[in-house]
């Protein structure tokens, strides 16, 4: 018997537990070779109201079991997104959440208002955790009041599901998680990349032009599992796990840690079919263990 992998997360019914993480799947038209039957949903590349050029190269470097990136949220702006991509999304058989960004709470709110009701837009992921912008981004995400203000500004402008992507660069993720839950978030994504740095021993300067970058990949997985788990213990809304998932077993760690679903990111760069491989591996695990649905998967989520 094929196990039922469908889940409901933060107001969205999903056909499976594996979504594409923001910034690793473009606007959904770029990744070749993925078997999309397995794709439960997609979070778009982060978008601002206006087009953004992004940071100067070098933008990425590989590190042990990971990579640092400082792309700087390069993107065409919301008008182009609505014109060029949303009409395609409307025809797809999985929901697309738009990852929204701003330099002030009101910019986030305005973006949500612009996108609310646009066919093809199923919901939002508020990015208060990008480490690679000079204004906003992570600086909203490590202050509970600012995080709540941004969430509230979006919540006021839309009835669509609102997810909030959290930064790991905080002393207590539970504080931020509770703040955005209180401000009306339907779900959380935990976590964005960790801030890291790598030095060029030839040029005696950082290898990234932005100096620092966001660390992703298997290097961060145990850190991310811990933070997703901490967030899940702190709130009643669902926490979508993200960070370094390469294989089904990695995703299952997040599920057992208390997440109803996960996002796969950097793995797609390496293996364009990673999402399908993770999905199929979860199905195989469930079948082997005799679970008929994800509700039957035991979770480790003690309440304090």
């Amino acid at each position, binding site marked *: 018997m094929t196990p039922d992998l469908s889940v409901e997360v933060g107001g969205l019914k999903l056909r499976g537990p594996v979504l594409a993480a923001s*910034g*690793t*799947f*473009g606007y959904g038209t*770029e*990744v*070749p070779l993925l078997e999309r039957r397995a794709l439960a949903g997609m979070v778009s590349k982060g978008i601002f109201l206006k087009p953004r*050029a*992004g*940071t*100067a*190269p*070098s*933008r*990425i*470097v*590989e*590190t*042990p*079991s*990971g*990579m640092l*990136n400082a*792309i700087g949220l*390069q993107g065409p702006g919301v008008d182009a997104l609505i014109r060029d991509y949303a009409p395609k999304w409307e025809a797809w058989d999985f929901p697309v959440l738009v990852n929204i960004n701003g330099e002030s709470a009101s910019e986030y709110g305005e973006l949500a208002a612009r996108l609310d009701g646009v066919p093809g837009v199923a919901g939002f992921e508020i990015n208060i955790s990008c480490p690679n912008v000079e204004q906003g981004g992570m600086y909203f995400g490590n202050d509970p009041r600012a995080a709540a203000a941004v969430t509230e500004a979006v919540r006021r402008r839309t009835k669509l599901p609102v997810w909030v992507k959290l930064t790991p660069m905080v002393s207590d993720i539970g504080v931020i998680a509770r703040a955005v839950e209180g401000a009306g978030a339907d779900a959380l994504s935990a976590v964005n990349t960790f801030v890291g740095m790598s030095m*060029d*021993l*030839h*040029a005696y300067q950082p*290898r990234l*032009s932005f100096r620092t970058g966001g660390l992703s*990949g*298997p290097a961060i997985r145990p850190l991310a599992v811990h933070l997703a788990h901490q967030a899940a213990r702190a709130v009643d809304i669902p926490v979508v796990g993200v960070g370094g998932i390469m294989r089904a077993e990695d995703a299952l760690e997040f599920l057992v840690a208390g997440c109803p679903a996960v996002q796969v990111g*950097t793995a*797609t*760069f*390496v*293996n*364009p079919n990673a999402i399908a491989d993770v999905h199929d591996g979860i199905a195989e695990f469930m079948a082997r263990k005799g679970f008929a649905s994800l509700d039957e998967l035991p979770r480790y989520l003690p309440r304090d």
Partner: protein
Amino acid sequence: MWVLGFAAPDIAASVKAGQFVNIGMRPGPLLRRPFSVYRAGDDRIEVLLKAVGVGTAQMLAMREGDVASCLGPLGRGFDLTLSAKTVSLVSGGLGVAPMPLAARDARAAGLQVTWVHGARTADELCSETEGDEVILATDDGSAGFAGTVVAAAPDADLVLACGPNRMLAAAAQRWPQAQVAVETYMGCGTGVCLGCAVPLTRGGYDRACTEGPVYVASDVDWPALPSHLSYAVSA
């Protein structure tokens, strides 16, 4: 400098000069490594490499029969459909990698091919050449022309160049219309990660893996493109 061959029938049948493959290995580094296709035919492709970091060192440790994942052909290659009678293929060091296919395609288009290849020393020259005329150059004068390939190359209706970005910047000064294949760090190779940004003279960036790696030289903002890539890398 080594040649590595892979059985890859689909890529071999469709690859154009200047296109690349993104090669991954398990075990191996996390990210794939991009390589210009050096030669193609008989269901096989070849890439040219030397050990510049951990990833390439691991590739060179592969043995006959080992399996690697080859994603490709990727990117936009050289455009040989322009009306021309002569072409100079100008390469520095490992930048020779796309040139055998460029020579093949140029000959097929009926062009007279001048092969201009340079390196720091005679030892670092690629020994395989393919052209109606061959010009070699070394920085130290140990073989051929003493000086840069850009100085050694004759003018031609069409100039195709590949090599270190510093060399390509010099080529851009002499031949603004040259087609040059740039070198960048690359993540996915398929246009998603936006890691391989190439700064453009008209402003903004595009992706070496998708809009490139071949550019009209005058379209690239050379001072903003890193001229040195550090391959210290990882395990």
